[in-house]
């Protein structure tokens, strides 16, 4: 039974980590960091998502192909957001 208990123990540890990170992100949002609020919130959200992906969805030790599929989803989303915002950011610069 030890094999399942260490699975279960690991999942509880990850669960607690996610709870702590949720508390952190809420707490940090009350502190006015100005332009830093967004990056911090995004960073915490990405770590939480990473934990869920790697441990809860057991990407860990799984096919390298699944890492690529998950990665490409987020990569192409990043392409959409960055290239679109690149238009909006540089549009103001030239007035």
């Amino acid at each position: 039974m030890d094999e399942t208990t260490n699975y279960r123990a690991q999942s509880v540890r990850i669960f607690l980590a996610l709870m702590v990170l949720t508390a952190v992100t809420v707490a940090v949002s009350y502190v006015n960091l100005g332009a830093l609020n967004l990056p911090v919130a995004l960073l915490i959200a990405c770590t939480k998502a990473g934990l869920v992906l790697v441990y809860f969805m057991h990407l860990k030790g799984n096919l390298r192909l699944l890492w690529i599929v998950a990665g490409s989803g987020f990569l192409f989303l990043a392409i959409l957001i960055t290239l679109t915002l690149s238009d909006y950011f540089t549009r103001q610069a030239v007035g």
Partner: protein
Amino acid sequence: MSESTAPIARPPAPTREHYLNVKYGIKSWLLTVDHKRIAILYLISITAFFFIGGAAAVLIRLDLATPAGDLVSSETYNKLFTIHGIIMVFFFLIPSIPAVLGNFLVPIMIGAKDLAFPKLNLLSWYLYMIGGSFTLWAMIAGGVDTGWTFYAPYSTTYANTHVIATALGIFVTGFSSILTGLNFMVTIHMMRAPGMTWLKMPLFIWAQYATSIIMILGTPVLAITIVLIAIERLLGVGIFDPALGGDPVLFQHLFWFYSHPAVYIMILPSMGVISEVISAFCRRAVFGYKFIAFSSLAIALLGFLVWGHHMFVSSQSPYAGMVFSLLSFLIAVPSAIKVFNWTATLYKASISYQTPILYAFGFIGLFTIGGLTGLFLATLAIDVHVHDTYFVVAHFHYIMVGGAIMGFLGGLHYWWPKMVGKLYPEAWARFSALVIFVGFNLTFFPQFLLGYLGMPRRYHVYDPEFQVLHVLSSAGASILGIGYLIPMVYFLWSLRYGKDAGPNPWDAKGLEWTIPSPPTTFNFEEPVTVGDVYDYPTEDETPPWKQGSSEGAHV
């Protein structure tokens, strides 16, 4: 030209059980999970949509024969070019090769019994038909006049036609495309026959794989864009309405993020077909297999970085425009590599002239012109002049009609014997290929001149000085229209009267030619043995410098 080697007609085999005659009746077709039957269902439905879209095109060209545009009213003209665009893009070009030839051949060419998720495959066809019926209902109930691009704020606040119904139709059909892409990807990854490594896969499979990447990652963004259009029309929220703080250019970003990769969904499968057809009728492996395979992937991935070249004059910032222009030029390189490799395959080949290879020659020529004129549109300074003119119309028709449809027809002729077990009439097929080639060029080449003269697209009434070129184009369109009707006639004719095609009428290599045609329901009776890909025996020629005195330099 030497006499063509007509394949020897085989005596009619005793009625062998295969996927077509294993079961009969409507239920056996409407509830089938056999990828081959679903391919036939798709073939029938996309042909129907093709002729609806084609009819709209013929009406447009007839109306444009006169500057005053007096065949139809302006509203009807706008609805005609919109429905022509929507049906041709979403209901013919995107599904045509993946859903028909891909569904039929992907499992067979990699030695699998069926796709990974047969039930999802049937669901994909039903979604396509539901989406299609929404769009057709919207067309009949009054049509939509926003153009297939649905630009805001016209489509969100000013158009009073059936925008939401059509948008719902496209939304549902998008999921059909996603499911097909998902099915192909999992099948190609997981269900290849033992021994078939990635570099032993036919190039058609590489092309389908690259297309699936785009279907998977691009289509959901179109779905959301359409949802936002519907929300804006229903709730009047200002996402794309500048008066309420939104930006119409945001719609263009989201729309083109999908719609440019979508044009690679349309052309990549045709490139796969052309690679197969050229290697079969040259009796030789394609020159530079790895380069063609990886250029398909390069096109699929780079295709997501270039959408801004549709928006150079739309108040997009010039810096972003410059980035998109550079990336658009980079994506021209893989296409160039493909064309050069196909041409190099013909060198010292043993070419037999049958209809598929004629379509392949047509494809290479017209895709070259289409691709090179794309460079004009990627060049910032020239796009300012030719954007939204007939130059653009000519460019994308050279790629879509000259490329994608030529590839589809070439593939259909090449695999028709395998799909239905009958041979099409060779003479008629060559004649129609010629008519299509001539009609196509007469229709769209004058439009390049019209474009640089500055004739804007989507104009119902135009200036008399453009009339001569329009009349040429309209004449070409009627020839092209007839050219497309002929194949449908003789394909149907061949079902009944065509000579029986044996398992390998073209003596081609590939797993699909090792099984009887039409194939049995589970494709392979005995376990599949995978050799090298395109392992055509070729004659080793002693190179001239080694020949010494024995016989003259043998070129």
